[in-house]
């Protein structure tokens, strides 16, 4: 590993000043960055640890409604926070489907959103990879396509975005509070990712918090994250879906949908939401929404199975969301929900 200077500032201004130096990386939980450094894929000269910045680790209500989720809130803390469980239990469901306890104890909100692709080409410094070295080629082209996108792949890069948490956050219109030496700005989470999924944050800028709008809580009673993977725990998504509905008078008043594991970015199919909005929920409607979401999907090599899988996962996520968010979010896909009856429903 390349040697680096390690800094642990206690104040934001100090941190931003330190990060203005070239070849600096923010260190959050380190669960992704340290592995990339060991592999020689990331070679920062300086690490600025966010652990000393206490206000980055809190979840607070926003004056205008909604929540601010600090960039350095640990995934494990997010998943058991009472306000998250009340207003956005789908975030807890997504986080608990990711990684393992020892990783969630360290992994942070922003680190999760900014994690690198799990593509073998990216992780091997000897391989051609446009994401790692622009113009070097793409080792994943010519592979079996298992980890490749079926939606939104670019000529340069076909890797999918690995984050679970990003999927419901994009569905719920989350924004980011970003700080730099020139001040702060707020951006839509979707714009954090370029076409190939790489971060659009300029070097030296810091994500301070994820902002969840007040409207998000209106979906809490009918919101589910469903993740399909090759074993029931401790695996990245093959495909996943976040489905959040607002229901009134037997109709879907509003729908929010996003897909994971299928695209270079957390994928928000507006076409599917348009099919759902205002309609009476039925199986046929959910299938039509899923068809709309996957209409533009194209297989790469042998990954055509993901298209049908994504359709079915989305239909199932919508069906579960319609049924209502259970009181207890399942920790494992295989674990039972709270028994039906008293307290079984959310809120």
């Amino acid at each position: 590993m390349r040697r680096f200077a390690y800094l642990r500032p206690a104040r934001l201004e100090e941190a931003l000043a330190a990060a203005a130096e070239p070849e600096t990386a923010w260190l959050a939980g380190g669960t992704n960055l340290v592995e990339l450094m060991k592999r020689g894929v990331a070679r920062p000269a300086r690490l600025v640890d966010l652990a000393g910045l206490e206000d980055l680790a809190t979840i607070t209500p926003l004056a205008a409604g909604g929540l601010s989720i600090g960039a350095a809130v640990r995934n494990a803390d997010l998943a058991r926070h009472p306000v998250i469980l009340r207003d956005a239990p789908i975030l807890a469901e997504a986080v608990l489907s990711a990684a393992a306890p020892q990783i969630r104890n360290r992994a942070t909100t922003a680190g999760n959103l900014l994690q690198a692709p799990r593509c073998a080409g990216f992780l091997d410094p000897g391989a051609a990879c446009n994401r790692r070295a622009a113009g070097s080629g793409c080792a994943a082209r010519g592979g079996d396509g298992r980890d490749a996108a079926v939606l939104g792949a670019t000529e340069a890069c076909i890797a999918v975005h690995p984050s679970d948490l990003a999927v419901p956050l994009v569905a719920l219109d989350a924004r980011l509070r970003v700080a730099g030496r020139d001040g702060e700005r707020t951006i839509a989470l979707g714009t954090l990712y370029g076409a190939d999924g790489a971060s659009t944050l300029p070097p030296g800028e810091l994500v301070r918090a994820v902002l969840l709008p007040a409207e998000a809580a209106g979906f809490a009673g009918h919101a589910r994250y469903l993740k399909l993977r090759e074993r029931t725990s401790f695996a990245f998504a093959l495909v996943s879906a976040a489905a959040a509905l607002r229901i009134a008078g037997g109709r879907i008043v509003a729908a929010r949908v996003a897909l994971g594991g299928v695209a270079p970015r957390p994928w928000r199919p507006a076409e599917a939401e348009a099919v759902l909005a205002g309609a009476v929920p039925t199986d046929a409607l959910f299938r039509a929404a899923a068809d709309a979401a996957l209409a533009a999907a194209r297989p790469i090599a042998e990954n055509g199975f993901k298209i049908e899988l994504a359709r079915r996962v989305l239909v199932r996520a919508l069906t579960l969301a319609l049924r209502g968010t259970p009181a207890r979010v399942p920790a494992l896909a295989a674990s039972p929900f709270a028994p039906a009856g008293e307290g079984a429903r959310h809120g």
Partner: protein
Amino acid sequence: MAKVPVQFTLNGSEKAEFVESGATLLDVLRDKIGDTSPKAGCRQGTCGSCSVIVDGELRLSCLTLAETCEGASIVTTAGLAEGGVLHPLQRAFMDAFATQCGFCTPGMIMAAKALLDRNPDPSRDEVVEAIAGNICRCTGYEPIIEAVLSAARSNSISAA
């Protein structure tokens, strides 16, 4: 760049080491201090065999930079026995045949301890979830789950 000083407590005793920039907690525990109870398995966070407890929390020592552990309190499986008497989890793992090759055992015991410290009377599902990040290639997990549940039962009997 010079080596960096790091101080922490390991199983209750003070340690002060000079570590290389980039050394992980796993490297320091095994190679500098000689506590080989945390195992170096995949070194990428995918196997859990290097799990230790840092400030009360289960962590992967292979993905933890040693420099970030300044002032921390670290517990490893090597520190569990007291005065030659095994910890109830260690006993339970032996009694339930929850160990075969033994490579995953210290990490499993750390994961189980982190669970029982927080939740002394876990359900089977909670045990399964708590060890989800720890891979065992021998036992098929059932004896491990049994061992953790039986250690929890024996703890609650002795506490009663």
